[in-house]
């Protein structure tokens, strides 16, 4: 790249980035996030300090029916009086928070009906507590020990073995890292998409393009646009990662009181994921630049629907990742339009030779180079048409051949 061209690309990139980057808004949004975290912390602290107790009245058809032991926030006791009158009293915020009506049905199975004045969150916990109590009761009646009971609830310990040596035996960390990166990438793609679309169509509406084109080439302009808005996508990914890490730290350390650990991240895969994410983000931003360059009026253009196309790789990847060694997923992991999403997932699920991601990456980079040139040509031709929007046929022709 010529020195002067490089300087111009740098100027357009900086202009693009700063055009939408507002320090004040960034600071305000982070302060709001901190305020939300503070509210969560205060709420949790207050909640922990004042752990509520719930009084549960038990009505049974026979005195032989066992009443659950008081446990956790629940105090169980036999409720005196008629059921109807007890239920009426629930409305008046009387002695009990809930009444459970216990019967023994066929085959000795307990049937429990819970009466409460309103639907609240703790009723689910109550249901779990009662279920657990009667499960233990049945185990005792059957003469089972605690270990035997857990054997019943979890009777099989599965271990999977594959004849395909490439399949990772334990891929939880790597797949979690890859899927996490895929979500970050989607956030980055949506951000850069929105920014570059607004930026290019906005400049066309503001009639700045012809003035710009007299100073710099269409390709320089589009390169600066792509880099500037790619930085916005990266900024979104970075701030989202930082927010996620801070949120996780806050929940784990401050709220749960556990030591900080990032065991769920596969650090060895991270460099690959970052490189694929960068290439994917560049491709998607350049693709959007090409579409926006051909749109004259965003309010009346049918081409805005093409914006959804780059989501296809992520969707196809999610649909086929169940069989990472299969033909469909193998194709997607090399096909340049989908490889940036599929190859990292494949790497997280199965062992791959080094040449595989390198080949996929090379193909993506070639595609990026081509789409960048196409976007430049589309912008130039779109501008020369002066208000007449190109057809899809024109776009394909210019994307491949130029003028």
């Amino acid at each position, binding site marked *: 790249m010529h020195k*002067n061209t490089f300087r111009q690309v740098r100027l357009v990139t900086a*202009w693009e980035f700063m055009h939408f980057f507002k320090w004040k808004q960034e600071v305000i949004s982070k302060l709001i996030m901190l305020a939300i975290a503070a509210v969560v912390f205060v709420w949790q602290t207050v909640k922990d300090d004042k752990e509520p107790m719930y009084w549960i009245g038990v009505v049974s058809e026979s005195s032989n029916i066992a009443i659950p032991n008081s446990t956790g926030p629940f105090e169980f006791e036999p409720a005196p009086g008629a059921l109807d009158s007890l239920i009426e009293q629930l409305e008046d915020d009387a002695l009990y928070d809930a009444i459970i009506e216990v019967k023994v049905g066929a085959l000795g199975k307990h049937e429990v009906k819970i009466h409460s004045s309103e639907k609240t969150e703790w009723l689910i916990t109550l249901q779990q507590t009662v279920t657990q109590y009667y499960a233990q009761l049945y185990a005792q009646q059957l003469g089972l020990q605690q270990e035997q009971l857990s054997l019943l609830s979890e009777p099989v310990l599965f271990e999977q073995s594959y004849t395909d040596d490439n399949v990772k035996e334990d891929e939880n960390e790597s797949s979690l890292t890859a899927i996490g990166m895929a979500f970050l990438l989607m956030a980055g793609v949506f951000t850069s998409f929105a920014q570059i679309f607004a930026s290019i169509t906005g400049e066309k509406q*503001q*009639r700045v393009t*012809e*003035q710009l084109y007299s100073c*710099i080439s269409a390709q320089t302009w589009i390169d600066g646009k792509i880099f500037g808005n790619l930085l916005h996508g990266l900024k979104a990914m970075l701030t989202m990662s930082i927010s996620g890490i801070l949120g996780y730290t806050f929940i784990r350390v401050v709220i749960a009181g556990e030591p900080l650990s990032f065991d769920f991240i596969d650090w060895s895969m991270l460099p690959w994921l970052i490189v694929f994410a960068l290439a994917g983000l560049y491709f998607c931003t350049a693709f959007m630049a090409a579409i926006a360059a051909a749109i004259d009026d965003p309010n009346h253009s049918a081409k805005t629907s093409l914006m959804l196309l780059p989501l296809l790789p992520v969707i196809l990847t999610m649909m086929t990742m169940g069989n990472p060694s299969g033909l469909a997923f193998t194709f997607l992991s090399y096909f340049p339009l989908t490889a940036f999403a599929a190859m990292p997932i494949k790497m997280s699920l199965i062992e791959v030779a080094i040449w595989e991601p390198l080949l996929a990456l090379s193909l993506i980079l070639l595609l990026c180079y081509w789409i960048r040139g196409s976007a430049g040509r589309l912008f130039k031709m779109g501008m*020369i048409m002066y208000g007449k929007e190109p057809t899809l046929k024109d776009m394909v022709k210019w994307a491949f051949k130029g003028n």
Partner: protein
Amino acid sequence: MELVVDKVVKKYEEMIAVNELSFSVSEGEIFALLGPNGAGKSSIIRMLTGFTHADEGRISVNIDGTYHPSIPSHELGYLPEDRGLYPEKSLLKNILYFAQLNGMEKQSALSATDSWLDRFELIDRKDDPLKSLSKGNQQKVQLITAVIHQPRWVILDEPFSGLDPVNQEKVVTFLSELTAQGMSVILSAHQMAMIEKLAARILLMNKGKAVFYGKLADFRSKQEANAKISVTFVQSIAPELQSSIPDNVEHQWLKDNKLSLSISAQFTINQLLNLLPSIGEVSDIQSQQMDLHQLYLQAIEEQGASTHA
């Protein structure tokens, strides 16, 4: 340093926007492109800037002995007809951005911006967003962005639109100063009074073709050769004498003693002077002096008539 356009043709699908047009512009000259809407002025300008290319013919820009097919961007200052800047950004940021894109270093661009804004009495508003300015003042900012980097070629498409008469005069002065510094200016405008003050040579176009190309003074002489003459006689002229004006002369009796007629190559002023005594005693003869605007309209009408003939 010279720009030569030689038999250039530009077609858009079936429509011929520019048809075998030729002209040249020299260093330090102000050259005006004139013509009605759709004449092909913008098509010519876009070829000169390199936005589009000629389908036939040749454009050659000689800069220091090197020939270019259009004006190189670093030597070009351009004010497009379809113009605009970033309305949310300040005057300073707008001008600085374009100055730097045109190769200026930040520091020299800053001092040049101050100097230009001061000159156009906008220095106090340099940090205001562009959209807060009147249309005329926005036009001044746009003009500054076009010339701040001191290009050797300046193309201004309708530089006077949106400006009040006072500011139009300022732009005239400013353009004269640019050419004094050696810049060559090609401008397209509809304000004929301004063109008359600025341009020594013009190209008048209609429907992609040249109607007139040359010195403005020659254009005036040529068109005034077709001037309208008003003759007032001492007494009313009888109808049989009124009909003594040849049929091929465009004329009209406004009153019984007042005649208006056109002078042309077929009917010269001398022929008129010879004829008048045979009609009656003349008390007054006046040539209806036309300004450039009228001459321009007349030339376009004549060209239209000859095309249809």
